C-alpha cells in the first residue's frame, strides 16, 4: 500500500464525491477552500497589523470586527468563525492560548507553531504568563498587566501588537515584514 492508497485517502475520496453528487458542494469549491487553507500564513495577519499601525480608521475596524477587517484586505473569511482582535497597550499585553485544545486563527496566521498545542504552553500560559514569555525574551515593564486570552469557544483571537519605536517613517510593506506569528499571539513583541 502506498501513501495515496490508504483507507483514509479512499474515505476522503468517497466523501468528496458524495458531497458533489448530492450537490452539497462542488469539487471547485472544495479545491478553492483547500487553496485558501494552504495560502493562509502569518503574512496575512502581518498585513492587517501594518495597516492598523498606519491607518486609524482601519485600526478601529480591526478592533470592532476582525472578520470585516480581514476581508477588507482581501483575506476570505466566508464560513469561518468570527475573528476577534485584542490590542496591546502600555497598560495591557495580551497573550493568546487555547487551554482546552488548539483553537488558532488559522485564516490570518496559518498553521500554529508546534509549541502552541503543547501541554506545557497551555498550562504555563495561564499559570505563569510573565515567566513564560520571559523565556522568549519578552520582558514587559512591571506596570504592564498581562491579559491571557484563553480561546475556548466560538471566536478565534489575534493580538494587535504595539508599533515599535524607530519605525515612524516606515511604509506598510516594511512594517508588515517585521511582524511575526509570535507577535500576534503575544509571546513576543515586534522589534524594529
Amino acid at each position, binding site marked *: 500500500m502506498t501513501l495515496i492508497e490508504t483507507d483514509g485517502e479512499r474515505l476522503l475520496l468517497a466523501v468528496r464525491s458524495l458531497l458533489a453528487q448530492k450537490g452539497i458542494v462542488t469539487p471547485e469549491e472544495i479545491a478553492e477552500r483547500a487553496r485558501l487553507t494552504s495560502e493562509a500564513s502569518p503574512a496575512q495577519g502581518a498585513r492587517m497589523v501594518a495597516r492598523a499601525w498606519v491607518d486609524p480608521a482601519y485600526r478601529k475596524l480591526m478592533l470592532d470586527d476582525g472578520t470585516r477587517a480581514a476581508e477588507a484586505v482581501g483575506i476570505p473569511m466566508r464560513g469561518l468563525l*468570527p475573528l*476577534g482582535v*485584542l490590542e496591546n497597550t502600555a497598560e495591557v499585553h495580551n497573550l493568546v492560548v487555547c487551554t482546552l485544545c488548539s483553537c488558532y486563527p488559522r485564516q490570518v496566521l496559518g498553521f500554529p507553531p508546534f509549541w502552541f498545542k503543547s501541554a506545557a504552553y497551555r498550562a504555563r500560559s495561564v*499559570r505563569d504568563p*510573565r515567566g513564560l514569555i520571559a523565556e522568549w525574551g519578552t520582558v514587559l515593564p512591571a506596570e504592564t498587566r498581562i491579559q491571557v486570552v484563553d480561546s*475556548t469557544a*466560538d*471566536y478565534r483571537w489575534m493580538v494587535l501588537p504595539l508599533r515599535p519605536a524607530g519605525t515612524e517613517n516606515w511604509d506598510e510593506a516594511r512594517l508588515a515584514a517585521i511582524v511575526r506569528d509570535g507577535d500576534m499571539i503575544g509571546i513576543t513583541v515586534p522589534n524594529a
Partner: protein
Amino acid sequence: MTLAPGTEVHVKFDWPEARGPAHIRTPHYLRGKTGTVVRHLGDFANPEDLAFARPAVILPLYHVRFDARTLWPDAVTADEILVELYGSWLEPK
C-alpha cells in the same frame, strides 16, 4: 436576559464529565471561580450538544475576566485571564 458588562458572575462548580461522555468548553481551572463579564460576544449553538449531534440550544457567549490571584495560590502579579464562557455556565452574583 443578557448579562451586562461589569456583572460579577460565578462559574458553576459542575463536572459533567464525571457523569458520562461530555464535551465541555469551560476550562476546569475556572469552575467555582468568580469573574466579571467584559462583553456579550454573540449567541451561538451550544457546542456541548453539537459535539453529540443533538439539537443545540442557542446560548449567549460572554468574555469573562478573572483576576489571576483568585485562581492560583502562587500568583503574585495582577495578571488577568479573559475567557469565552457560555451563559449556561454563569450565575450572576
